[in-house]
Every structure is written in structure tokens, then in C-alpha cells.
């Protein structure tokens, strides 16, 4: 049977909800107006489940599960907001803030940043872990855009949009662990990239001020991401 036709009923935060069997918990939650925090997820891109903010509790499952990749099951009981989850989400967010140098007051994306918004949403008013203060560079070699590693949270949205939608695979992640960095081609300056089409998709999907349009000053950067679900659909039609 086509899974789309299969209707499943489940409970999210004590609400009875019906869904299609191939949907993720996040899809269903969004459809029903239940907000689950996310950073690495972006409608139209593949899921990686890396930011861990969308973790939810599922009855009978000892481990927390990411809502963005976990499929619904018949009779599933999901808790998306609990004291424990809120605490973990706040702590995870704090870890993001300690990892690089996020100084909002001088950032082009100030006021237009998903990381900043998330801090507000989760009520994170201070960071109680030590900052790591890495020494990371800014790459301003591209004519139109810039990359500020100080703001990167390694969500890999840029990597995915470039590979999956633009088809260029200009971006990837090098190194591993705490030394992971997004980069282009053979790690030469972005401006020298042979594969980059300067389409700007990566800049548009970046949740923070890590990828930015040149010539903007503090707080001026804005993005558009509505093209994504649309393009994804069109690409699927073509295949």
C-alpha cells in the first residue's frame, strides 16, 4: 500500500492528531501549529539531524529522538515540550554560542538571525559554559559574498543547498570534530572557486551571519528562502 494513503493517529503533547505514515514528527507538528525548535532543518533540503534542538520524548523509547527525521507511527505518544527538553535545548544552544565568536552587536545579520531568535525563543539569557574563542578567519575574496567563520554553526545548510539544489557541490566540510569548517573546492579562497556559480543560494539559507552579502552593514542583511520547497518540487518533476 502507498504509505501516503495510510493514515496514522498519534498523540503530540496530549493532542490526538492524524497523519500520513511517511511524515516526520516535525512535519506533523508544523501542520498542526505545534512549534518545535530547529536549526539544521530546512524545508526542501535533506535532513541531517545534527543540531539536536528538535529532540522530543517518545513514550516507550528510552532515547530522545530528533523530530526532523523520526517518522510517525500508529499510537505514538510524543512530548515536544517538557522541562527536561527545554533545559537540554537551552544548553545545546549555549554550546553553539561558546563554539565560535557570536558578537551580535557587530553582525550583519543582527535582528535577522535564527540563532539569535532561538535564544529568545528558548529564554537563553546568559551562557554558563566557558567560551572557546577560536581564532577563525573571514573570507572576503568573493565579489558578491563573504564567509565569516566566527558565525558558522555547521548546520551544513549551505553544503546541502549547493549540492542538492544548485548541483554544484562547491561547499563541503573539512576536518572533523571541533576543527570542522565549511569551505569551497580545494580550500582556496571562495573567490577563486571554479565550481561556484555565484547563485547566492548558500547565502540565502544560512541561518546566521556566517554567509553574507557584501556591502551590508550591521543588521542590514536579509534573506529569502521561499524558493527552496518550490525548486525542490520542480527538480523532482524533471527527474
Amino acid at each position, binding site marked *: 500500500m502507498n504509505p501516503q494513503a495510510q493514515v496514522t493517529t498519534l498523540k503530540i503533547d496530549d493532542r490526538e492528531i492524524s497523519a500520513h505514515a511517511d511524515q516526520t514528527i516535525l512535519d506533523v507538528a508544523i501542520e498542526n501549529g505545534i512549534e518545535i525548535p530547529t536549526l539544521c532543518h530546512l524545508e526542501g533540503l535533506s535532513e541531517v539531524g545534527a543540531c539536536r534542538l528538535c529532540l522530543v520524548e517518545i513514550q516507550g523509547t528510552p532515547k530522545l529522538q530528533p523530530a526532523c527525521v523520526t517518522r510517525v507511527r500508529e499510537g505514538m505518544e510524543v512530548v515536544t515540550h517538557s522541562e527536561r527538553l527545554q533545559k537540554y535545548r537551552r544548553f545545546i544552544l549555549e554550546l553553539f554560542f561558546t563554539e565560535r565568536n557570536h558578537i551580535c552587536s557587530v553582525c550583519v545579520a543582527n535582528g535577522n538571525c535564527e540563532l539569535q531568535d532561538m535564544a529568545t525563543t528558548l529564554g537563553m539569557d546568559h551562557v554558563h559554559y566557558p567560551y572557546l574563542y577560536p581564532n577563525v578567519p573571514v573570507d572576503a575574496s568573493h565579489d558578491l559574498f563573504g564567509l565569516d567563520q566566527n558565525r558558522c554553526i555547521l548546520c551544513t545548510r549551505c553544503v546541502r543547498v549547493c549540492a542538492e539544489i544548485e548541483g554544484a*557541490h562547491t*561547499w*563541503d566540510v573539512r*576536518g*572533523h570534530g571541533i576543527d570542522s569548517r565549511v*569551505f569551497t*573546492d*580545494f580550500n582556496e579562497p571562495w573567490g577563486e572557486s*571554479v*565550481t561556484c556559480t555565484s547563485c547566492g543560494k548558500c547565502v540565502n539559507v544560512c541561518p546566521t551571519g556566517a554567509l553574507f552579502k557584501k556591502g551590508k552593514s550591521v543588521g542590514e542583511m536579509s534573506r529569502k528562502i521561499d524558493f527552496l520547497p518550490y525548486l525542490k518540487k520542480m527538480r523532482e518533476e524533471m527527474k
Partner: protein
Amino acid sequence: MRSEKISPPSEDKRWKIVDTTMRRKGYVPSALIEALHSTQEAFGYLDESALRYISASLRVPPSKVYGVATFYHFFTLRPQGKHTCVVCTGTACYIKGASALLQTLDKNFDIKPGETTSDGEISVLTARCLGSCSLAPAAVFDGHVAGNLEPQTLMEQIARLKE
């Protein structure tokens, strides 16, 4: 199948080995790690021309090749010294004094793991476990394992390398 022939970065005969590896795998993109292994084995490290050649031959995007080459500890993008000394820092060796060995190297040659002496003679590397834990602490000198090392015997082994 591949239409155009991509030629290796240089006339160096060792590219034949790399070519053979890739050909045997039918130039599929998934042969990337094997191609990197084969290149490093032939040349001792992966330089940019090698990465470009592999990228073009297997038709793997440049950033993917570079991302993979830098993900794995085993691959190195810099040339190594004439000799290598790989000190095991696995658990057994650690509790039996691997750090004292590394300190000895630092004190005598001013090099830390991953570095090469300024004269290009010796590179010091670390390994997670050589599988010779019963001889802890152990190290590999140019491919030859020696166990039960102490700072003094370590220096003797190094001296022997240079001979």
C-alpha cells in the same frame, strides 16, 4: 563510461599505481578513499595536484575530495620527513608512559606530534593503538615496531634510523 582521458599531473611513474587502483574500481566515485590510499602509499602524502587529479578522474566534486582527505587522520596533505616515528598513545601505552616518550622527543628535537624536524629528517606521529599493547609503550620506526620503550631506548632507536 569515461569519454575523455585525463592525464596525470606529471610524468612520474608512480601515477601508474594510482591509475591502476582507479581503473580496477571502474572509476566509480566511491573509489575515492582507495584512490587516496593508493596515492599516499606511492607518494607519501597527498598534494593538491593529486587531489585535483583524483577529483577529475573519479568525477567527485573538489570539495568532497578535500573534505574526505581532511576527515581521516591517516591522510596527510604535507610531505613527511625522511624517517617517521609513530608513538602509540593507546590506553595501554598511555598508562605505561607514552607521554614521557613524546616529551623526550619534544625536548630533544623540539617537535610535537604531526611535526617534522627542521632538517626534514624525522616526522613524529601518534597512533591510537598499534595492537602491540602487551609491549606497551610501543612505537613504530619506519614501519618497524619496537616495544617496552623508555626515553633512552627511544633515542637509541631514533639514532639507528638516522644511520
